[in-house]
C-alpha cells in the first residue's frame, strides 16, 4: 500500500497534466500534497526519490513542449523549486514522524513493562498485595486471594486485620502502626489468617512500605506465603516429639494420657481426642480417656462416646482395631460410615481420624481424633500416627509393669520407712547401703555416722556373737534368718541389747547381692529376762547361802555343843563324884583339878568364840600404831622361856626391820598363839625359832618348830575353826580349836597374810606378813595381801 503511494502520486500528476495541461499553478499544490503524503507514509529516501520522480514528471511535459531555452530554464527552475520544497517538506515530516515514533515506542515499552509486571504479580508463588492507609486491600494477586480463600472482588472491602486471626491481630496492628509512622520499613512474621470459609491458614507475612509517587496515600506492600505444609510438618514433628517427651517423662499412663491426647490435638490442630481401649475379652472398644478443647457440644459428644461400645470391625474405630491401620474421614458431611457422625457434626466436628495403639503386635486400643474443620490427611501424618500408636502401646505396657513395680516398691518403701523395727541394707562388702529411720533413732546416729562408725562395730559384734553361737558370719550369705543378740551403745552412750536377724537377698543369678538385717531393740525384754534371771539366781544364791549358813550354823552349833559337853562331861562327872562323897582327899584334889581345867577350857572357848565373832562381823576395833615386831618377838620368847618348857628358843631377828603398822596387843596375841602351838606340838628338846625380816613393804615373821608336823591332808584345814590337829601324838594336846582361826583373822585384818609349811616328823613353820608403817613403805605396797 505504502509502496503504491508514490506511483499513484506520479500517476495522479501525469493524469492531471495530461488531462488539463494544467500549469504550474495547479501542479504546485498537487506536488506538495503528494510529497507531504509520501513523506508521511514512506521513509525519507523513498520520499526523496518520489519527490524527484514527481518533479521530473512535472518538468518533463514543459520540456517536451518547450521550444525555447527560456522555457527549458523555467522548467528546470520549476523542478528545482519543486525538489527544494519537497526536500523541506520531507525533512519536516521526517522529523515530526521521528518524534511521533519515539513517543510511540516509549508508550509501547511502558505498556509492555506493565504487562510483564502484572504477569509476574499474578504468576508469583507468593501472595502479593498493596494495602492502603486504612489497611484495606488495594491490589491483590491471585495467589493471595487463594491463600486467603476469598475472591479478589471481595478483598478491597476488607482490611488486612479483618482477615487475620484474632490472636494475631494486636501484633499486626502494632506493626502496621510502626510501618505507617515510618519507624520501620519492613515487618515480617508468621501468623494465622482467616479464610473465607472460616478456616485458619498459617502464613508468613512480610509487609514493607511501598514507594509512593502520589503524596498523601501511603501504601504498604504485603507479601504472604502459605506455610501450611511447613507448619504441618513442624506440627507432625512437634507432635511426635511431644509424645516421646510425655512417654519418657516418668509419668504413669494415667497421668500421661491427658497430656498425650492434648498434645495430639494442639500439634495437629484438632479439637477432641479419645482413647478407646479394647476390653479384656476383646469384645468391644470403650472410651477410657478423652481430651477436648473448651467448646459447646463436646460434652454431649463425650458422654455419648462413653456410653458406646464398638465391636471389632464396626465403623471407623472398629476397622482401625481390626486392621491396625490409620483411618480417617476427612469430611463427615460426605460419609456416613461413622457411628456417631450426626452427633459429631452437631458438636461442630467435621473431620475424624483414628489410629491404632499397638502393643507387641496386638491392637490394644485406638485413639480417635476429631476436628471442627474439614481436614485433609496426608501420608506423613499417617506414618507419624502409626509410629505414635506403637510407642504409646509400648508405653502402656511399660507403665503397667512400672506401676506394678512402683506399687510393690512403694509398699516395701513404706514398710522400710515406717517399720518400728530397724532395717538396714548391707552391700556385698559389708558396707551399709541404706538404713531406715527406726535404726537411726534407735541408735541416735545420723546415717553418715551410722555408716562410717556405728555399723562396722555392729557388724563385728554380730560376727563375734554368731561365732559364739556357731553360726555363719553376717556376710556368709545367710538365708535362714537366724537371730543374734548383741550389745551396742547408742551415740548417746546408752547400752542396748539388739537382736539382729539377717536375710540375704540374691541377685538374678542367685548369688547373694546384699543382706537385709532387721534390728530390734530387745533391751527391755533382755533386761527384764536378765533381771528375772538375776533375781532368780540371787534368790537361788540366797537360798543356797541360807542353806549353807543354816548348815554352817548347825555344824557350828554341833561342834560347839560337842566341845562344851566334852568339857562338861568331866566337870559334871567329877563334881558328882565329889558331891556323893566318900572320896580320899587326894582324889578330891585331883578331881578338882580336872574340873578347874575343863571349866577354864570352857571359859577360853567362850572367849575365843566371842573374839572370832567380833572379828568376823567386823566389830573388833583395832588400835593402829607403830609396832616394833622384833620387840614383840623377843618378849614372846622371854615369856615362853620362863615356863617349865623343855623347848629351846632361838631368835633370828633382822635388826634393820622397819616399824610395822598395827595393833600391838593383837600382834602379841598372834605371836603368843603361834609360839604356844609350837611348844605344845614340840617334844621335849625341840627347838622353836622366831625370825623376822623385811619383805617388800612387809615384815615377814616365821615361827618354826621341830615338832610333830602336820599331815598333808590336815594342813589345808589348820586355820579352820575346831580343826585341831589330832592325829598321832598330837591327839592329847589341848586347845580350843579356834586359836589359828583367830590368828589368821588378826593377820588378815592387818592387811597381811599367813601360811604354813610342814612335814610330819620334822616340824612346822608358820609365816605371816604385816605391812610396814607408812614412812617406810608406799601405800601401794602396803595394800599387797
Amino acid at each position, binding site marked *: 500500500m505504502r509502496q503504491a503511494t508514490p506511483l499513484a502520486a506520479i500517476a495522479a500528476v501525469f493524469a492531471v497534466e495530461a488531462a488539463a495541461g494544467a500549469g504550474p499553478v495547479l501542479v504546485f499544490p498537487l506536488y506538495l500534497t503528494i510529497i507531504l503524503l509520501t513523506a508521511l507514509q514512506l521513509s525519507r529516501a523513498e520520499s526523496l526519490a518520489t519527490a524527484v520522480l514527481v518533479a521530473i514528471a512535472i518538468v518533463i511535459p514543459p520540456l517536451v513542449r518547450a521550444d525555447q531555452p527560456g522555457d527549458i530554464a523555467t522548467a528546470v527552475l520549476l523542478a528545482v523549486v519543486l525538489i527544494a520544497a519537497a526536500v523541506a517538506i520531507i525533512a519536516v515530516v521526517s522529523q515530526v514522524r521521528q518524534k511521533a515514533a519515539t513517543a510511540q515506542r516509549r508508550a509501547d515499552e511502558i505498556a509492555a513493562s506493565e504487562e510483564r509486571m502484572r504477569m509476574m504479580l499474578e504468576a508469583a508463588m507468593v501472595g502479593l498485595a498493596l494495602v492502603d492507609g486504612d489497611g484495606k486491600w488495594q491490589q491483590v494477586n491471585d495467589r493471595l486471594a487463594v491463600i486467603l480463600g476469598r475472591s479478589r472482588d471481595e478483598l478491597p472491602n476488607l482490611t488486612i486485620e479483618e482477615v487475620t486471626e484474632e490472636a494475631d491481630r494486636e501484633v499486626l496492628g502494632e506493626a502496621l502502626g510502626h510501618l505507617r509512622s515510618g519507624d520501620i520499613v519492613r515487618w515480617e512474621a508468621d501468623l494465622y489468617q482467616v479464610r473465607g470459609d472460616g478456616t485458619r491458614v498459617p502464613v508468613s507475612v512480610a509487609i514493607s512500605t511501598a514507594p509512593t509517587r502520589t503524596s498523601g496515600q501511603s501504601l504498604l506492600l504485603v507479601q504472604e506465603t502459605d506455610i501450611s505444609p511447613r507448619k504441618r510438618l513442624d506440627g507432625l514433628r512437634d507432635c511426635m516429639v511431644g509424645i516421646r517427651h510425655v512417654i519418657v517423662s516418668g509419668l504413669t499412663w494415667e497421668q500421661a494420657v491427658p497430656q498425650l491426647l492434648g498434645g495430639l490435638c494442639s500439634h495437629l490442630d484438632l479439637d477432641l481426642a479419645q482413647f478407646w481401649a479394647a476390653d479384656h475379652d476383646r469384645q468391644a472398644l470403650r472410651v477410657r480417656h478423652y481430651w477436648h478443647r473448651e467448646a459447646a457440644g463436646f460434652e454431649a459428644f463425650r458422654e455419648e462416646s462413653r456410653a458406646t461400645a464398638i465391636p471389632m470391625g464396626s465403623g471407623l474405630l472398629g476397622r482401625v482395631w481390626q486392621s491396625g491401620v490409620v483411618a480417617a474421614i476427612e469430611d463427615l458431611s460426605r460419609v456416613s460410615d461413622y457411628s456417631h457422625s450426626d452427633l459429631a457434626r452437631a458438636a461442630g466436628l467435621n473431620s475424624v481420624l483414628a489410629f491404632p495403639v499397638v502393643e507387641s503386635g496386638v491392637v490394644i486400643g485406638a485413639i480417635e481424633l476429631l476436628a471442627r474443620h474439614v481436614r485433609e490427611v496426608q501420608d506423613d501424618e499417617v506414618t507419624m500416627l502409626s509410629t505414635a500408636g506403637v510407642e504409646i502401646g509400648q508405653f502402656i505396657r511399660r507403665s503397667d509393669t512400672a506401676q506394678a513395680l512402683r506399687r510393690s516398691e512403694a509398699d516395701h518403701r513404706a514398710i522400710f520407712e515406717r517399720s518400728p523395727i530397724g532395717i538396714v541394707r548391707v552391700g556385698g562388702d559389708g558396707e551399709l547401703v541404706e538404713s531406715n529411720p527406726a535404726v537411726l533413732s534407735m541408735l541416735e546416729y545420723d546415717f553418715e555416722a551410722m555408716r562410717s562408725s556405728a555399723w562396722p562395730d555392729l557388724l563385728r559384734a554380730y560376727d563375734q556373737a554368731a561365732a559364739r553361737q556357731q553360726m555363719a558370719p553376717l556376710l556368709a550369705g545367710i538365708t535362714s534368718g537366724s537371730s543374734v543378740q548383741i550389745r551396742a551403745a547408742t551415740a548417746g552412750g546408752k547400752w542396748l541389747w539388739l537382736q539382729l536377724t539377717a536375710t540375704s537377698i540374691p541377685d538374678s543369678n542367685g548369688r547373694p547381692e546384699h543382706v537385709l538385717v532387721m534390728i530390734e531393740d530387745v533391751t527391755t525384754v533382755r533386761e527384764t529376762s536378765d533381771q528375772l534371771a538375776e533375781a532368780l539366781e540371787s534368790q537361788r544364791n540366797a537360798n543356797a547361802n541360807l542353806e549353807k549358813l543354816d548348815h554352817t550354823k548347825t555344824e557350828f552349833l*554341833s561342834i560347839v*555343843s*560337842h*566341845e*562344851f*559337853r*566334852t568339857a*562338861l*562331861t*568331866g*566337870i*559334871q*562327872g*567329877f563334881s*558328882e*563324884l565329889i558331891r*556323893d562323897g566318900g572320896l580320899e582327899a587326894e582324889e578330891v584334889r585331883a578331881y578338882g583339878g*580336872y574340873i578347874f*581345867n*575343863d571349866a577354864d577350857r570352857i571359859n577360853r572357848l567362850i572367849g575365843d568364840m566371842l573374839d572370832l565373832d567380833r572379828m568376823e562381823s567386823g566389830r573388833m576395833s583395832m588400835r593402829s600404831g607403830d609396832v616394833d615386831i622384833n620387840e614383840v618377838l623377843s618378849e614372846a620368847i622371854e615369856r615362853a622361856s620362863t615356863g617349865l618348857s623343855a623347848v629351846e628358843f632361838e631368835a633370828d631377828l633382822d635388826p634393820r626391820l622397819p616399824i610395822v603398822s598395827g595393833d600391838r596387843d593383837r600382834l602379841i596375841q598372834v605371836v603368843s598363839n603361834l609360839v604356844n602351838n609350837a611348844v605344845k606340838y614340840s617334844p621335849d628338846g625341840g627347838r622353836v625359832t622366831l625370825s623376822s625380816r623385811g619383805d617388800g613393804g612387809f615384815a615377814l615373821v616365821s615361827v618354826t618348830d621341830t615338832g610333830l608336823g602336820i599331815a598333808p591332808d590336815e594342813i589345808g584345814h589348820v586355820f579352820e575353826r575346831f580343826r585341831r590337829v*589330832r*592325829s*598321832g601324838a*598330837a*591327839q*592329847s594336846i589341848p586347845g580350843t580349836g579356834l586359836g589359828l582361826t583367830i590368828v589368821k583373822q588378826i593377820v588378815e585384818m592387818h592387811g597381811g597374810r599367813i601360811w604354813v609349811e610342814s612335814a610330819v616328823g620334822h616340824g612346822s613353820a608358820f609365816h605371816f606378813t604385816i605391812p610396814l608403817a607408812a614412812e617406810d613403805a608406799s601405800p601401794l605396797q602396803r595394800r599387797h595381801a
Partner: protein
Amino acid sequence: MPEPANQGGTNLFTVLVADDNDVAQRLCKRVLEKAGYSVIVAMDGLQAVDVALSQRPSMILMDVAMPGIDGLEAMRRIKAELPTMPIVIASAHSMASDTDRFLAAGADKVLSKPFRLADLVAIVAKLAQEKKVQEKVQDGK
C-alpha cells in the same frame, strides 16, 4: 567260840572305855571300877578295835569324835568280827538326830555326854545282867 582270856570268871565283867579325852576316860574308869567292873581303855578308834578284838571285853563304851578312825567306824569294824559285842556309844554329840544316827549305825545303847554317873552304871549293869542271864541259859542247857 573261844573264851576270852581275861573273862575267866562269870563275875568279871570287863568294860572297854574308848575315849580320846583323858578326863572322860579317867571318870568312866573310876566310876565303873567302883561299881565292880573291870575297865580297860583305848585312846582312839584304831586302838579300840585292836583292844576289842584282842582282849574281848564284855562290852565297849565308845566315844565318837576321836582322831584316826572315829567311834562309829571302830564300832563297824568290831561288829564285823564280833557281832554280839554290846557297844554303847557315849558322845558329846547329843542331839536327837545324833542318837538316831548312832543306833542306826549299830549301837546297842547311846549315852549322851555329860551323863549322870548313875546312868552310866545302870547301862553297864543292865548289860552285865543280860550277859549273866545269857550265860545261865547257856549253862542250863
